[in-house]
């Protein structure tokens, strides 16, 4: 059984090719000039440059967080390039017809056709290649109902009031080391605004691709769901196989105003490094949403990529009766390390949160759930339910659970459960006895283990996520 599995595990990272394209890339290094360059490149207003510089100076005073259960060599920020854009983007293409065909081919190869007629039905997509947004599909159609979906660079010019009001309002500049860095150097990302009472007619999606060598990606996403609106947003990520570690430090801010609902799904498949642990993306991401009265934010993530993941999509349940959800599958193999989870901060009355986390560790990887549930004194009648399950495949990996539970309200109820187990011989035997091979059996068992989370994903992604898991697991049963 182990042989087959090992073979499987050696299967190549399918998104690992790189695109040969002429890019304008800043030389490595970080200083004020780099920030001025990025800001200048985007023709940004003064307030935003000031905002970036303020963050940069704060960042210089900060230190990298050390509490996460991950180990990696110190990052030399002077060796990272903070800006890279395809040359052809100098004059931003007005339509798909103007987009560099090489870029389009890249996305076709990744299984993401960008031509609107060929695109996934009902999914509008913003495509971010290294530091810039390449194209956003279906924008006109969305604008008909008042939904704004564009790159954040564009939003800064077209919708400055909204950007100014909300950027940094959920994740303050000094929230953490990587968030501060992102504030200083973010290059692009997606911007979404759903007007009052509008139910966004299609799924919105952003596809992130790191291509250039030695380049970091620092994107920033801002989603504002005005009162009574509804949106479902998906993101996907891939990168070529390269021997160096590359840095991805994103910030995502969600604002769900009264009675609004945001569903945010991620399938993260950054290059995880090779089987010896060489290369791969450092994925240090800050994602947080704030819920006003009766609002709901639901995070679903399938994390299979990256060499190191450090990520805690969180909800601040400020308004009464607001709801936060976190559904996560994190799979680590080979030398991957993940420290991921969520924070649910209950401030309003009768706020509710649900956390379902499934961690799968294989190879020599390390996979940790880290979560915080906090009931503030005013959170009367608040409830949380947390279920964290870990599955170990092989005896050289680690699975860890670090839940922080803090309550200051006697009427708030918190329930946390965690279990750890392995794929049992009995389960395997049963499947095999019924004629399944070991790999299939394991992937079936793992898929079953993750079902509660997969069912939260939009349909097309759920299928994709299942397959991804299968590929990522290949060869892990020893």
């Amino acid at each position, binding site marked *: 059984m182990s042989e087959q599995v090992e073979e499987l595990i050696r299967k190549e990272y399918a998104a690992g090719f790189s695109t040969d394209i002429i890019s304008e890339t800043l030389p490595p290094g970080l200083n004020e000039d780099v920030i001025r360059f990025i800001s200048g490149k985007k023709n940004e207003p003064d307030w935003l440059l000031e905002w970036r510089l303020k963050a940069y100076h704060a960042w210089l005073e900060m230190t990298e967080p050390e509490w996460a259960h991950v180990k990696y060599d110190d990052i030399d920020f002077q060796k990272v390039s903070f800006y890279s854009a395809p040359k052809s983007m100098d004059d931003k293409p007005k339509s798909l017809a103007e987009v560099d065909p090489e870029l389009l081919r890249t996305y076709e190869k990744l299984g993401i056709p960008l031509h609107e007629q060929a695109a996934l039905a009902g999914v509008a997509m913003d495509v971010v290649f290294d530091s810039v947004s390449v194209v956003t599909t279906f924008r006109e159609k969305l604008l008909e109902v008042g939904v704004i979906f564009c790159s954040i660079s564009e939003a800064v010019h077209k919708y400055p009031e909204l950007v100014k009001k909300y950027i940094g309002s959920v994740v303050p500049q000094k929230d953490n080391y990587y968030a501060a860095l992102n504030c200083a150097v973010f290059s692009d990302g997606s911007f979404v605004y759903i007007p009052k009472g509008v139910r966004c007619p299609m799924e919105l999606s952003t596809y992130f691709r790191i291509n250039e060598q030695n380049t970091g990606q620092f994107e920033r996403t801002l989603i504002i769901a005005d009162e009574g609106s509804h949106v479902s947003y998906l993101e996907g990520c891939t990168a070529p196989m390269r021997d160096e570690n590359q840095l991805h430090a994103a910030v995502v801010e969600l604002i769900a105003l009264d009675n609004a609902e945001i569903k945010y799904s991620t399938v993260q498949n950054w290059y995880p490094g090779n089987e010896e642990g060489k290369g791969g993306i450092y994925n240090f991401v800050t994602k947080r949403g704030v819920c006003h009265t009766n609002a709901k934010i639901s995070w679903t993530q399938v994390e299979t990529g990256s060499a190191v993941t450090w990520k805690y999509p969180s909800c601040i349940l400020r308004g009464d009766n607001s709801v936060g959800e976190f559904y996560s599958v994190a799979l680590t193999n080979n030398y991957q390390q993940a420290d991921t989870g969520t924070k649910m901060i209950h401030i309003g009355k009768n706020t509710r949160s649900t956390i379902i986390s499934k961690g799968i560790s294989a190879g020599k990887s390390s996979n940790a759930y880290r979560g915080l549930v906090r009931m503030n004194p005013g959170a009367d009648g608040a409830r949380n339910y947390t279920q964290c399950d870990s599955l170990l495949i092989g005896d050289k990996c680690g699975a860890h659970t670090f839940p922080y539970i803090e309550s200051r309200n006697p009427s708030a109820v*918190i329930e946390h459960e965690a279990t750890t187990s392995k794929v049992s011989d009995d389960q395997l035997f049963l499947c095999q006895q019924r004629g399944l091979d070991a790999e299939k059996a394991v992937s079936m068992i793992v898929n079953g283990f993750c079902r509660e989370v997969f069912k939260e994903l939009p349909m097309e992604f759920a299928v994709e996520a299942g397959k991804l898991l299968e590929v990522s697991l290949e060869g892990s049963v020893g």
Partner: protein
Amino acid sequence: MTDFQQQALTIAAQQQSPAWLAPLRSQAANEWRNVIWPTRKTEHWKYTSLASLQKTLLSLVNTSAANTDWKSEVEFIDVNAIRLVFVNGVFDAANSSNFSENIVRFSQANSAQQKIIEQYLGKVVEGSQHLFATLNSAWLDDGILVHVPRNQTLDQPIYVVQVSTLGEQTLSVNQRLLVVLEDSAQAELIEHFVSTSEQQNSVVNALAEIVVGDNAQLQHYRLNLEEENIQHIGAVHVNLLRNARFRGFTLALGSKLKRIDYQINHRGQGAELNLQGVYLPRNNQMVDYHSNVQHWVPHCTTSEVFRGIIADSAQAIFNGRIYIHKDAQKTLAELSNKNLLTSNKAEINTKPELEIYADDVKCAHGATVSQLNDTALYYLQSRGVSRNEAEVMMSFGFINELLQQIAEPAVHHYLLPRLAKLFGRDQTLLEMADE
């Protein structure tokens, strides 16, 4: 070095102790000098502030006869045991029993006993991880050795009482216990910390090191009943060898600072740990329990249950870590922590942790906060009991579930009425039901 560290060293230098303990003490004093003083950013002290401790001006215990006023206020557990009483850290021979050959104070150890002490003392505890254990060793003036030879079963429990009373100054009380159970030995140990209603702002640092040999069994109780001003930092460090069994029960009322660590190492295959704890801080008190169970070898079992009721403006902290090392296959480990807050100023911070490096294990933990079963409340009400009383009844029931499992009847009899009173329950009835 902080002022407190400096002060502590001054005291360490003044402590008298047998010469043969000097190397351990000076080594500990050196370590203490280099200890990094914890802050809120230190994970193991995230929720517990040592500010009150730092403000305390320590002074050495006056070894002259302790006053005896405490006797009217402190009731011993009514148990047929070998009793050792300490008042503010000073041994009180008048209230203690004659020692059996299994027990000796370090200062009176013969050469064979010294050998045992030297072999184990400071070895069970991992010093660098526990700064107050380091301090305990630096301050070590005396201690107690309990040694049970191979195949011997003690016919009486050993009962160690530490009384804190009102003195003239703030006292620093250092207690050290070393318990060594050789192969197939059996014993029962009760540690009882108690204070009089008025007591000094004393600092108690009580450390037990316990080795349970192959097939040996220890029943252990640690009752931390001092209240209000006492600052208590306690620890129980245990090594379990092959097929060893440790059955522990601990209970803590709150005080100004109360931090108790259980550090259990499964070092021999087939070892079994069963640990239960209850914490009941009230007023402005706090209690902090940290347990850290390390599975180093395969086939060991851990079962841990902690429950707390946090009232008034009190604060409780629970941290329960289970660590499964790489080769510790076939581990079964379970931890449950349940909490009730009974006031809107009370606070609980709990963190059950699992760190697992072996795949063929079954581990689980659960934590809950504030949850009385609605169906049960309804059932009680449907029999005419008011909502309020039903809640009190069930709150007491919530900890009574653990009290009922106390194996030593004397400890049970001692605790039940005292805790029932805390909850305003009818103790006669409970006792009758209990008989």
